[in-house]
């Protein structure tokens, strides 16, 4: 399976994914692939299962059925140790940034490094931390604590933390939600820059069409538990389907 993935350039393949919460079938039958270097934006109404989708991909949630192949490994079948080694190659930017309140920015960034790459020396860890902070333009905030940071700064630090292990895949959960339009645009551009710099493949959950236009190669619309439509930004923008048009108005 792994060789096939290398040959086809597919990094994520989702087959007949299902997930329910009680009687509420959130994901009924989701199928798609993500190619190396590609960036997909997933659109959909609130509560339609967009965040659930990326939580299943990262193994944070168990799915009820189907297959989730990430870099050739079927996530639901993996043991904890194998899952951790796949997660090393996945970066996850949470909606709330999810910075650890009790730690400084430096400690927040060091945390994934010390957990995944235990053999790294203190000097190497420092260099890596300073490099990612420089990339997001917040080297000066290295000794601050999360409560001292603005919403935009928290997103940038969250992005820096998710990039620190140099992941092959990035999962963004509403990266621009709650930000003013200027900061939202800055974050979108930063995501694009990082994508180019580290050649990552991305799945971006967003309602922000500016973010979608800037960062996506392909848009997917999730509706009633299935992929309702997909295509480039321009293709979907021209669609006459009222469900698709609603996102562009």
């Amino acid at each position, binding site marked *: 399976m792994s060789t096939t993935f290398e040959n086809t350039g597919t990094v994520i393949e989702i087959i007949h994914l299902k997930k329910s919460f009680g009687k509420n079938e959130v994901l009924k039958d989701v199928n798609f692939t993500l190619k190396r270097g590609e960036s997909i934006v997933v659109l959909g109404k609130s509560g339609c299962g967009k965040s659930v989708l990326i939580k299943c991909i990262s193994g*944070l949630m168990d799915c009820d059925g189907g297959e989730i192949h990430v870099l050739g490994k079927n996530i639901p079948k993996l043991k904890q140790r194998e899952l951790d080694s796949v997660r090393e190659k996945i970066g996850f930017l949470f909606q709330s940034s999810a910075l*650890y309140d009790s730690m400084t920015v430096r400690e927040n960034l060091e945390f994934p490094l010390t957990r*995944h790459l235990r053999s790294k020396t203190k000097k190497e860890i420092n260099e890596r931390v300073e490099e990612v902070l420089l990339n997001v333009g917040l080297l000066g905030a290295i000794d601050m604590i999360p409560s001292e940071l603005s919403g935009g700064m928290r997103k940038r630090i969250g992005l820096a933390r998710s990039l620190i292990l140099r992941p092959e895949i990035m999962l963004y959960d509403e990266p621009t939600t709650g930000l003013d339009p200027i900061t939202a645009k800055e974050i979108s551009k930063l995501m694009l820059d990082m994508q180019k710099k580290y050649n990552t493949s991305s799945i971006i959950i967003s309602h922000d069409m500016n973010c979608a236009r800037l960062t996506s190669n392909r848009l997917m619309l999730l509706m009633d538990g299935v992929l309702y439509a997909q295509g480039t930004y321009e293709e979907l923008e021209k669609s006459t389907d009222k469900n698709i048009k609603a996102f562009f108005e």
Partner: protein
Amino acid sequence: MHMTFPDSIKNTLVEINETARFALRFFREVFIPPYEFKEVIRQGYEVGYKSIPLVGTTAFIMGLVVTMQSRPTLVEFGAGAWLPAMAAVGIVREIGPVVTALMCAGKVGSNIGAELGSMKVTEQLDAMEVSGTNPFKFVVVTRILATTLMIPILVVFADTLSLFGSFVAANIKGHISFYLFCSQVFEKLVFMDVIPSISKSFFFGFIIGLISCYQGYNSKKGTEGVGKSANAAVVISSLLVFIIDLMAVQITNIFMKY
């Protein structure tokens, strides 16, 4: 006849079952490597060192008040000389451990409940998992270990300050030298008074850590849920401190004839 339980009883039974499973998971994970020694020490500092002013002040006042309140009655019966011994036995066996546990249930329990609750609702626990860290081991196991190990130490500290408070109170309306006070205390206080007291403190610490972590770790419904978790952590762990104390007294009485 078909009998149905009211929802409140059903929910309580479910909650007890879930807490027991949470405790079992703790015992399973505590022995499996990797061990988070650094985090246990950090939490020990948070639970132990940062509680010293609160526990110390409360214990001192309790020692002072108990002695001041007991003095008139003992003097009336001509047993004023028994004051240090009576205060010491009361403090070491009961007041020290229970007051320390209740103060810690309030301070540490609410802190852990709110902290874990907010970590849950702001996805910090998920972020930890994505970082290759078992959040249960890093967040829950370390905190339960810290409370279990630190509260007995705080109890010894509280007992000492409480006895000092008692000495101060004995000198407010009378006069007793420090040497005489100590010799009267240790004349009546035996090793078997200290052992059950310290032993039950481990259980107090464990239950405070367990309940607070359980409430925080299973926090729901956003910020409202965080408040509820903190509140439930304090209320349930305080109640369980009394229940454990009652059981400890019964068990101690089986082995010791007073």
